[in-house]
């Protein structure tokens, strides 16, 4: 096992309480940060090479550096806890077990950014985690870790949690901001970027839960030390949500650069494929990243071992590579049907499209219908090319990345598993037991 920076002490009894968290070294990073200059905290994060853990992998220090600082206008830090990408459940795991780590990270990050009111936007389904956070925040207030003059530093911070109400799109930072403002989760057209005009038109930084939590060990050990962990530009540790056909699914903290083979097969991690089956394909970073067949996932096209890092997973571009994304690691064994799996993902994106811009609104539904037709045994010869063409018409034409998130799985599944699609179209009799629900819409239950 590699270094455990985020999941350290996660199994300690009562670690979710302030008392136990502090007894295990909690809030030491905050004490240290508050004695530093704000810019020094930013510098440490820059030096650490930390990259956004929500999926995009954008350097966090650089993002912080973009925040506008107009005179007299409050700034805000907003934590993106709208974890909804299929295959991803690391933030939920961290928040429910170590809520104070997120709160500590929020306080020191807010200090670095000069924000005096910060928000944690958590998805509505996680109401029970919302209550855990509310309780932890109250503990922090009672201990003088939040509110006025935190630990005698003169720094004030109000921290609030807001819950959403069921919309994947609110994980997109501008949709999240809209939702925080009490509106429909329609992504904004950029520019302006949130760093200039975010929540209520004020400069805002939106960071993922894991990103903010990672600032705690970074301050404790120093940015340079943190940057020594990992490989190349993929520094530090990453939480991976491993799921699907695995012997031991769960949340693992890995040092960047671990080989994909070790991650899947080592007893320290996923322990191999469930029931001794063979690995067929992996979706490495949440449902939206390109799916890769086993051989390309374990070794790059050049024949080098594939590593768990931003660069290695992306090696070969979309032709033979994928992305680290949010670390939602979905494993499919030899029994899984790529076409059915793709239909399921596509239905998800169809259901979650906000409906604002036409390519995504219309295209996601169309792709779902074509895939459903194939699965019902009514596919046409032309359907595979049609699907590929539809996704290409969505990709890059939309306001927000949901369009791409819907396109990439389709493009990659056809790229790597075309024969399977054609088999379904040419031999519909082979499609056994099509078990799936075709709910065009069930946002609203009927009475």
């Amino acid at each position, binding site marked *: 096992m590699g270094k455990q920076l985020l999941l350290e002490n996660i199994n300690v009894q009562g670690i979710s309480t302030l008392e136990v968290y502090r007894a295990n070294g909690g809030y030491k990073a905050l004490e240290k940060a508050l004695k530093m200059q704000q810019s020094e905290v930013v510098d440490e994060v820059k030096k650490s090479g930390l990259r956004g853990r929500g999926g995009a992998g954008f350097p966090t220090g650089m993002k912080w550096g973009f925040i506008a600082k107009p005179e007299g206008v409050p700034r805000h830090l907003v934590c993106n806890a709208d974890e909804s990408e299929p295959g991803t459940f690391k933030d939920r795991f961290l928040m429910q077990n170590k809520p104070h780590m997120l709160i500590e990270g929020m306080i020191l990050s807010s200090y670095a950014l000069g924000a005096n009111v910060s928000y944690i936007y958590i998805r509505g389904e996680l109401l029970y985690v919302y209550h855990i956070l509310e309780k932890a925040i109250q503990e922090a207030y009672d201990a003088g870790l939040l509110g006025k003059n935190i630990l005698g530093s003169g720094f004030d911070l109000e921290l609030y949690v807001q819950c959403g109400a069921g*919309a994947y799109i609110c994980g997109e930072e501008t949709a999240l901001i809209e939702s925080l403002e009490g509106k*429909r989760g329609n992504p904004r*057209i950029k520019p302006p970027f949130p760093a200039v005009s975010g929540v209520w038109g004020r400069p805002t930084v939106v960071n993922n839960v894991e990103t903010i939590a990672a600032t705690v060990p970074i301050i404790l050990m120093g940015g340079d030390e943190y940057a020594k962990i990992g490989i190349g530009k993929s520094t530090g540790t990453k939480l991976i949500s491993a799921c699907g056909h695995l012997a031991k699914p769960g949340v693992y903290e890995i040092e960047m650069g671990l080989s994909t083979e070790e991650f899947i097969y080592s007893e320290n991690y996923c322990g191999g494929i469930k029931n001794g089956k063979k690995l067929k394909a992996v979706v490495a970073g949440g449902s939206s990243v390109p799916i890769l067949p086993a051989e390309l996932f374990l070794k790059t096209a050049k024949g080098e071992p594939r590593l768990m890092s931003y660069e290695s997973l992306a090696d070969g571009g979309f032709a033979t590579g994928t992305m680290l994304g949010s670390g939602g690691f979905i494993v499919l064994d030899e029994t899984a049907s790529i076409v059915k799996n793709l239909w399921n993902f596509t239905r998800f994106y*169809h*259901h*979650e*499209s*906000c*409906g*604002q*811009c*036409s*390519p995504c*609104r*219309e*295209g*996601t*539904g*169309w792709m779902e*219908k074509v895939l459903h037709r194939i699965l019902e045994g009514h596919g046409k010869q032309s359907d595979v090319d*049609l699907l590929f063409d539809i996704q*290409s*018409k969505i990709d*890059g*034409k*939309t*306001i927000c990345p949901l369009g791409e998130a819907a396109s990439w799985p389709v493009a990659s599944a056809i790229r790597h598993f075309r024969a399977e699609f054609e088999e379904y179209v040419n031999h519909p009799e082979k499609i056994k037991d099509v078990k799936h629900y075709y709910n*065009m*819409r069930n*946002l609203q239950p009927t009475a």
Partner: protein
Amino acid sequence: MPKVTIDGIEIEVPKGTTILQAARMIGKHVAPPAMCYYSKLKVSGGYCRTCIVRVTKGSAANPTPMPKPVASCRTEVMDGMEVANYTSEQNLIDRKGVVEFLLLNHPLDCPVCDQAGECHLQDLSYENGSANTRYDFDRRSFEKIDIGPYVQLHMTRCILCFRCVNTANQLTEKRVHGVMNRGDVSEISTYITKSIDNEFSGNIIDVCPVGALTDKTFRFKSRVWFTKPVDANRECKKCAGKVRLWFKGEDVLRVTGRKDQWGEVTDWICNDCRFEHKRYSDWNIEGPSHIDHHSVISQNHYELAKLKLDTGKQLKELKSKKQVDKK
């Protein structure tokens, strides 16, 4: 002032001008089509994606091309920017894709649609669409709702441009309609049966690019190309009273706002002018309207004689107006 080159034509524009506005200043031959952007609205654009263009050079300072097509209506020009609209083959392919999406669920009921003949989607599909559809599933349908005595809502025709919602936001404090649900079942609705009535509600008919919102008092009265547009005015306490009357013989079948060459109203008009004054005697007639946006209607070239006389003057006016718009 930044200089931008669109389809090889350079123009200098005030700072803050969008690519689409700059293209319109150059002229029709380079201006991208727009289904949701509306220059008279303070907030609009960005949704439909028909106005996408390729930015082949970001700016003089940073010449890197933009990797994806951008919505020209929401992208400000930078000094030294180079844009390809009709000169980029890929851009035209991309736009064709967008048009296909817009038409995907749009019913082919043009023969019974009152908007036919002045429909922007008809123009758009004629110019950028293909003759065949690749979509062979049922088109979506909605429960019909009644939004009052003046405006007819045909939700199946709606392309969700948000113009009517933005118009209501701009013209009234009491917007009662909006976009419900999400994704491809989003719909314009009042949610609870309620009519849309405020003094300027009729303007949502004019801004609608398709036949989703049409004039109930004109319903099935005539095809628009059989009616003759005439500019007229009256003293009105609520609005400027500058309208367009649509005659069939001696009868005024319809009153609308006057629209410019981009199909956008020049003045908002009140419901009183629009729905309650349909007698010839209510109006001071100014003369035949010049229409150059919609091909079907402009087949009646009867106004050309007058137009020729005024061409020089009109162009001057248009130019000075654009300067005002920019500010």
